[in-house]
């Protein structure tokens, strides 16, 4: 087990290095830099500013420097926000993104497995078709359509929740979080309930479930004690891809609901050529997704006795 983890981490390090390298050079290949303003600054000032951030040196030196600082945990200063470091910007935005992402995946796992199980138990009956129809809608309706529509209906028409996003002054209250969380969770609820339905149907056909019924256990006990355990396994292995999907989704959600998370910071920073912020966010998310994938794989191996990890 430990050997397996060590090997996965060993693969992850070059992966992250490749990501950093590609992102670094792609960003620098862009025409225009962070200090090309509408009203250009005097050439002398520009040179001074570039020198201050080390941007006047050959690009390979900058690259080595960046990696050196990164190893020491220094993501550098933001090029656009005078008095902020990249770490500052990320620590401002990350709690917002993490809260919404975390709540969404919990909601999606709970509702998805519940709906999927119901559909499986009512296979080819009205309940099944209803759940699968809703799931199809959840997959088909993109978050950037669902978000504005929910905001329009519940915020503007019904007045149940405040519109206009998270204001730092009020913090993350439940009523401000609910729409973003639901919007982000919906596609995942749909995917998870489809996965759950398929795996539950297969489990219910297996011999040991028939044995459990044969020895006289009641329906709910068989489902809860025997079927559910085996049926959630595919969901565990889906957690890795789900985390990537949530990261992608959060970029849109933060745009739609105007949340000050890192997804929005990333898009803004990319458009403004704020190199260091873009790099910081890419590194953070790549590490996060790779870690979550590893955790999901380990969890799967632990829960499924059929899988043996060869160390």
């Amino acid at each position, binding site marked *: 087990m430990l050997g397996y983890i060590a090997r996965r981490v060993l693969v992850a390090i070059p992966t992250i290095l490749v990501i950093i390298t590609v992102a670094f050079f792609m960003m620098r290949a862009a025409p225009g830099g962070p200090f090309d303003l509408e009203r250009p600054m005097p050439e002398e000032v520009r040179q001074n500013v570039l020198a201050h951030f080390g941007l006047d040196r050959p690009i390979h030196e900058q690259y080595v420097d960046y990696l050196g600082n990164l190893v020491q945990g220094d993501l550098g200063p933001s090029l656009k926000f005078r008095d902020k470091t990249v770490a500052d910007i990320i620590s401002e935005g990350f709690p917002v993104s993490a809260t919404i992402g975390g709540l969404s995946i919990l909601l999606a796992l709970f509702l998805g497995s519940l709906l999927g199980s119901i559909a499986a138990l009512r296979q080819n009956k009205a309940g099944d078709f209803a759940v699968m129809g809703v799931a199809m809608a959840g997959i*088909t309706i993109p978050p*950037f*359509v669902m978000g*504005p529509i929910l905001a*329009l209906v519940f915020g503007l028409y019904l007045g149940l929740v405040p519109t206009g996003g998270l204001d730092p002054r009020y913090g993350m209250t439940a009523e401000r979080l609910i729409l973003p969380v639901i919007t982000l969770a919906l596609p995942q609820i749909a995917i998870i309930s489809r996965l759950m339905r398929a795996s539950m149907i297969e489990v219910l056909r297996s011999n040991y479930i028939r044995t459990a019924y044969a020895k006289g256990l009641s329906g709910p006990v068989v489902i809860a004690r025997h079927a559910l355990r085996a049926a959630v396994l595919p969901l565990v292995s889906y957690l890795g891809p789900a985390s990537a999907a949530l*990261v992608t989704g959060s*970029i849109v959600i933060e745009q739609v609901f105007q949340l000050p998370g890192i997804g929005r910071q990333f898009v803004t920073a990319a*458009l403004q050529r704020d190199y260091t912020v873009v790099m910081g966010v890419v590194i953070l*998310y790549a590490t996060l997704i790779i870690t979550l994938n590893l955790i999901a794989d380990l969890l799967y191996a632990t829960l499924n006795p059929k899988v043996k990890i060869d160390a």
Partner: protein
Amino acid sequence: MINTGLSNDNVDAMETAAIKGRSLWDDALARLRRNRAAMVSFAILGLLILMVVVLPYIWPHSHETIYRDRVWLSPTWDNLHIFGTDAQGRDLFARTLVGLRMSLFVAAAATSVSLVIGITWGAAAGFLGGRIDQIMMRIVDVLYSLPFIFFVIILMVVFGRNIILIFLAIGAVEWLTMARIVRGQTIALKGMEFVEAAEAAGVSRPAIIRRHIVPNVLGPVVVYVTLTIPVVILAESFLSFLGLGVQEPETSLGRLIAAGAQDMEVAPWTLFVPSLTMMLTLFCFNFIGDGLRDAIDPKDR
């Protein structure tokens, strides 16, 4: 002697059976025809494609014409603004048609890109096997775990928002699953008894590939292509929504939705019309994809 006679009879019988028999594709087609959702989706999609190809040329309003006195008209029969007008007073029906055309075009192009890369990569890995196969698939595994959307966003920012780049970028992201599917099929087929049997019977290599390999790889690939198209449409809209995709004066469903989301408080139809168009299109592709999968791979039902 008797043996030869018998086998000759058998060959005759087999030949007649082959003539009258139903191939697996006929069976699949029959199953597909029975799938009502898929057939309705085919019809709707066909109609939509016909509309976006023909209607922009005969519709009285161009998607670019600005009517300064007709800003945010709600849907009306006057002047045939049946879906209303947008913030600049442009006809929303014409814009939706052109936007859908763009979305479908990007989808077709990007899916082709992913198809070419995926099939080449997967087939090469499957045929070559061994160490090369391992390395190639390891690369796919690593790429799978990357937050690709970040790279697409950086790519769009860096190289400007041109349309060829959009479908190259999206296609280059979506080929991974295709490569896995094709590799799996290739490896499975290489060792199949019927391929061996065909070889033993002296069937030529090209004929084996044409008659036995291609039809068996084709099924899953066709299914996956139909399911990739909606993903690509979503990806393009996602970029356009963030302002990184298709640029004015061109438009796509994502751009229209983004504009609609901004104006939804005063003109909700500018959000609803492109949103519903997009949902209808995605529904069709998903139902067709599901239908094809059930038809071609019946063990999954």
